[in-house]
């Protein structure tokens, strides 16, 4: 039987396990939308901006571990997806982004709503395709999902010209997918694992640096087992938070620019750094030449390009984090079962715990509500059992510092690209993936306004998600830099001209709350959280609070400014 391209697309998505599609219709994809009602297994979520469709698919992927899928029309629809795609690419999130394209005969003619989206997204996708032959459509979709979810995951874009969607052919689903030029390494080299164990057995001041790769590879259990068995303190990057419980005594919390005193000092005094699924981003390392100056480095990563890109490494291990950690544990058990690990690191652990106790994360209470207080209240109310998405800026760092993340996939944040406007649509995707979970977006007043139109989506879908604004009427992080590094020249960071967020929420059909006094914090949050509707809570916080510690850009990790 002959089927249309639109049918083949939707049937293929179904076979890839897709039950949710975030999208926005338009001329080039109207045939797909025409077919959609005949595929009730796929739920379509109508967003209010294509960028939000990608972020929502991204949030869905981060929260569920599955591939997120979104659909946009050609031209402006396609260009609106670019920020979302680049966000997902920076954080290695598996997405399949489908864009419409003008009919093949018109490609290159500057047709209406034509844009070379394959060219535009070449540097921010793992791979992308322009389908020019309907007989290759099913295979292309199969390959796109295979690429998105395997190896180091990432976004893959499929550009579908309108005539391909309309054309007919027989639907043949390729059961097998094989690409000779793509073959990621999962199983780590045994010799490198042996060398890792050797390094570990000789180290007296080891530290584990855990990144987002631990969460991607579902390797949290293995990481926990290794850290506890070998008694090694663990620091996490922003993307790694949740991969190891910060409540564990071995946890030193987040490392880097806004990392803890203990984590940053531990890195700079370590004699061995076991880096698992992190890529030595500049926000993590600070000044490279002064990063971990005394340490030998073991680097486990599935992407060989991450290794020796920024930092010289003594033991590179290419492979899946879960398999590598499992392998290291197995060798330790087989060869060093009687080894006294706790004894080997006793002095070091004492030093690290002293650092942790002497300068914990702190802030001073004041006349106005402190943003850190709000995060602590959220943690208390939810008992840490919630999925938190953030926008980008000061509030993001306060969430990272003051919310106790204990489980993987509970912090959804744009770590690599730092995309303002990510958090709220990502929460929509996460709530769709986990309908019974408490999902909260913590937002700044500036970031939220970048995708606030998605209130309509959240209300239309009856999502119970909560948006908590830490409202300082500033572009807070930039303001902080202006205060600390630009002599208080507060250029264009005052955001006093802003909507009444409570009324705005109500106008969209959501609930709106405002909190101005500390004593109202818990009761009002509790009331908002008990509602089964989308609720926005506008918390007026101290306007000039800064995030501490801070390592100035370009300084060494131990050159922190403390509170």
């Amino acid at each position, binding site marked *: 039987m002959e089927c249309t391209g639109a049918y083949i697309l939707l049937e293929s998505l179904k076979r890839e396990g897709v039950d949710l599609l975030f999208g926005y219709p338009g001329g080039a994809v109207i045939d797909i939308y025409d077919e959609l009602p005949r595929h009730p297994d796929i739920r379509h979520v109508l967003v209010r901006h294509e960028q939000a469709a990608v972020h929502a698919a991204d949030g869905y992927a981060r929260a569920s571990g599955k591939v997120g899928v979104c659909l946009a029309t050609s031209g402006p629809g396609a260009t609106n997806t670019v920020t979302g795609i680049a966000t997902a690419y920076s954080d290695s999130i598996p997405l399949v982004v489908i864009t419409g394209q003008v009919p093949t005969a018109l490609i290159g003619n500057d047709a209406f709503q034509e844009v070379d989206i394959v060219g535009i997204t*070449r540097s921010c996708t793992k791979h992308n395709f322009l389908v020019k032959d309907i007989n290759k459509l099913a295979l292309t979709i199969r390959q796109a999902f295979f690429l998105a979810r395997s190896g180091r995951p990432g976004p893959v874009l499929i550009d579908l010209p309108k005539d391909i969607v309309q054309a007919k052919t027989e639907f043949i689903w390729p059961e097998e997918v094989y690409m000779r030029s793509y073959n990621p390494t999962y199983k780590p080299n045994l010799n490198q694992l042996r060398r890792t164990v050797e390094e570990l057995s000789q180290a007296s001041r080891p530290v584990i640096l855990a990144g987002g790769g631990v969460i991607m590879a579902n390797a949290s259990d293995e990481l926990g087992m290794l850290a506890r068995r070998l008694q090694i303190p663990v620091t996490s990057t922003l993307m790694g938070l949740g991969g190891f419980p910060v409540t564990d005594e071995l946890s030193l919390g987040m490392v880097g620019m806004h990392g803890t005193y203990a984590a940053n000092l531990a890195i700079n005094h370590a004699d061995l750094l076991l880096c698992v699924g992190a890529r030595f981003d500049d926000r993590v390392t600070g000044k490279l030449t002064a990063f971990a100056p005394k340490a030998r480095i073991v680097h486990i990563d599935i992407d060989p*390009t991450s290794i020796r890109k920024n930092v010289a490494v003594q033991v590179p291990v290419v492979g899946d984090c879960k398999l590598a950690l499992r392998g290291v544990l197995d060798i330790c058990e087989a060869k060093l079962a009687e080894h006294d690990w706790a004894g080997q690191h006793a002095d070091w652990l004492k030093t690290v715990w002293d650092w942790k106790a002497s300068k914990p994360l702190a802030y001073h209470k004041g006349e106005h509500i402190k943003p850190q207080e709000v995060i602590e209240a959220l943690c208390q109310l939810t008992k840490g059992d919630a999925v938190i998405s953030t926008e980008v800026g000061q509030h993001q760092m306060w969430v990272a510092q003051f919310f106790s993340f204990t489980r993987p996939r509970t912090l959804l944040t744009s770590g690599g690209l730092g995309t303002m406007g990510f958090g709220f649509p990502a929460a929509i995707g996460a709530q769709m993936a986990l309908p019974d979970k408490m999902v909260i977006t913590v937002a700044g007043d500036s970031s939220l306004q970048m995708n606030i139109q998605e209130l309509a989506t959240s209300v239309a879908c009856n999502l119970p998600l909560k948006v908590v604004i830490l409202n300082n009427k500033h572009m807070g992080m930039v303001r902080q830099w202006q205060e600390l590094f630009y002599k208080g020249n507060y250029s264009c960071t005052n955001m006093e001209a802003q909507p009444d967020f409570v009324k705005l929420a109500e106008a969209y059909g959501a609930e709106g709350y405002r909190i101005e006094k500390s004593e109202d914090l818990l009761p009002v949050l509790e009331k908002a959280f008990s509602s089964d509707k989308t609720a926005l809570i506008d918390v007026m916080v101290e306007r000039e609070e800064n995030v501490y510690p801070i390592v100035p850009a370009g300084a060494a990790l131990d050159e922190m400014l403390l509170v």
Partner: protein
Amino acid sequence: MQRHVLSVLVENEPGVLSRVVGLFSSRGFNIDSLNVAPALEDGVSHMTITTYGDSMILEQIMKQLHKIVSVIKVMDFADVPAVEREMMFLKIQAEGVMRGEILRTVEIFRCKVIDVSPNEMTIEATGDHEKLEAIISLFQRFGIKELIRTGSLVMRRSKRAD
């Protein structure tokens, strides 16, 4: 900074050249020369890229090239026994008494004259990178009016029978 000649086998599909070239420009790597043509196998193209960099940069270039989904194989010929050739055309100022000397230089370097006019000669030269550099510097004194080069080709030498 050592010179490296990389041989890259890629799937011959639309956009593959921009994937490779885009990688070099977006990551700030240098391309000294580049040539692309179909390989022996159908559907496969062969790129030869010459670049400069220290060992850490070269390692990144190799890994990043490998990471491109359409790239099948990457080889660096810096430390491999290989034959390397490049072709170039030189249009030389060639008037009166200089013509004889130009022809003698052509002879010595085993170049070929492929076009002649009353006051110009076009010369075809083939050789490895160093040889072409030497030819250019020798012809400079006659006056080079135009120069065009193909970029290098390399192929691994066959194993010698012991």
